């Protein structure tokens, strides 16, 4: 994911379900179409919930990668 320019990133490590998802939803609400958002989560539930929400809301999951023992989700706001 090195070639993607992140517009906004949020470190939601230490917050539990639904914290990281709510953080992503808050960011999507505040972002412009086309912005690339990153959320770092250490909550196991996020691995299922974040991609499922991105699919339901019809945004784009550009990737997810290990980040210091947590997971960094990279999402593009598509509409």
């Amino acid at each position, binding site marked *: 994911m090195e070639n993607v320019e992140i517009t906004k990133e949020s470190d939601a490590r230490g*917050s*539990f*379900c*639904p*914290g990281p*998802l*709510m953080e992503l*939803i808050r960011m*999507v*609400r505040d972002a412009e179409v086309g912005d690339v958002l990153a959320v770092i989560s250490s909550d196991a539930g996020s691995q*299922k*919930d974040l991609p*499922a*929400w991105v699919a*339901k*809301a*019809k945004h784009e999951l550009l990737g997810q990668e290990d980040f210091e023992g947590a997971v960094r989700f990279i999402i593009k706001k598509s*509409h």
Partner: protein
Amino acid sequence: MKNIIIIGGGTGGCIVANLLAKKLDSDEAKITVISASEQHHYQPGWLYVPFAREDARSLTRPVRDLLKKQINLLIGKVEKLDDGNHQVILENGDTVSYDYLVIATGSIPCPEDIPGLSEGGNHFYTEKDSFELYQILQEFRGGKVVIGVGGLPYKCPVAPLEFTFLFEEFINEKGIRDKTDITYTFPLNAVFNIPSVAEVAEPILQERNINIETFFNLEEVKADEKKAISLEGTELDYDLLIMIPPHRGAPFLQGHEIADAKGWVKTNKQSLRAGDSKNIWALGDTTDIPISKAGSTAHFEGPVIAKHIIADLRGEELGEDCVYEGHVMCFLETGYSKASIIDFDYSAPPVLKAPNALMHYQKMAFNKAYWYLIPTATI
């Protein structure tokens, strides 16, 4: 003599004030409760008002009657917290100084935070709104009903589910179930945020033919077209929309450095100390602790704060029991005179028993016993 100020005459504020009054001698501290309202509301009763099972007028008592007589009560709205100078400033300009401060100002439903919700939606989270919904349900003859959670966080997390179950029972008894289509919505990917509660609630919703719409984060209500629209792009048509609005903390906390932009006080989840302060604590709905905003939360938090203040005042060591372990206990009313109980803390998620009649009648009894047991800090 030290001044202890408690802001809020609701569940949390009354409990802390009464616990302190029980344990402290009158020459050790002056205890004052500042409350914006003269009345204390038993909010859980509002769940039943729309179905005419409770009368909203019987769910309030004067705060004064719930406080021990050595506690001073000041009716007034706090408009500013000047923690640098250990003062709170009231709406009328009066200044009150404190040595110890407890913030128990609860949470406020804010329909205005979602475009169109005030015009297009109803709820039962205030005395006035629960009564208005009662009037609407008196006239209700069937149609599309959408019931849901309009934003997180909100207080009494199970109340929207309970309302859905009671509503289904209500229209069934009215003989208009076949003329009514019910949809329950929730912002997450499940019908509730605690998996064991969702596992009990979801099959009941399905059994009663209630549609489920998850990942529904309410974005806008088009009141003229009667449409509720989610951030995820789902549009639901409705004849009656019952949506719990997103909540905020008290206005004087919104953006204060002790709280976040929405007014949730940054609270240590074990000591319940607010921010970096040495002499301010918070309990009940106003904290940012990610557990249920419920009266029972305030009930289990109250003794921790009272012990902290007493230990500090007397120069004593804090005991091992001066920690809040995240205990919450709530009933889950499932309709048709059955209920279950949800009991958990930070380390143990709830394990629910199948809904039964005994729990329902316990809840009914608790609704009456509340006044004698809880705000008075009897238990």
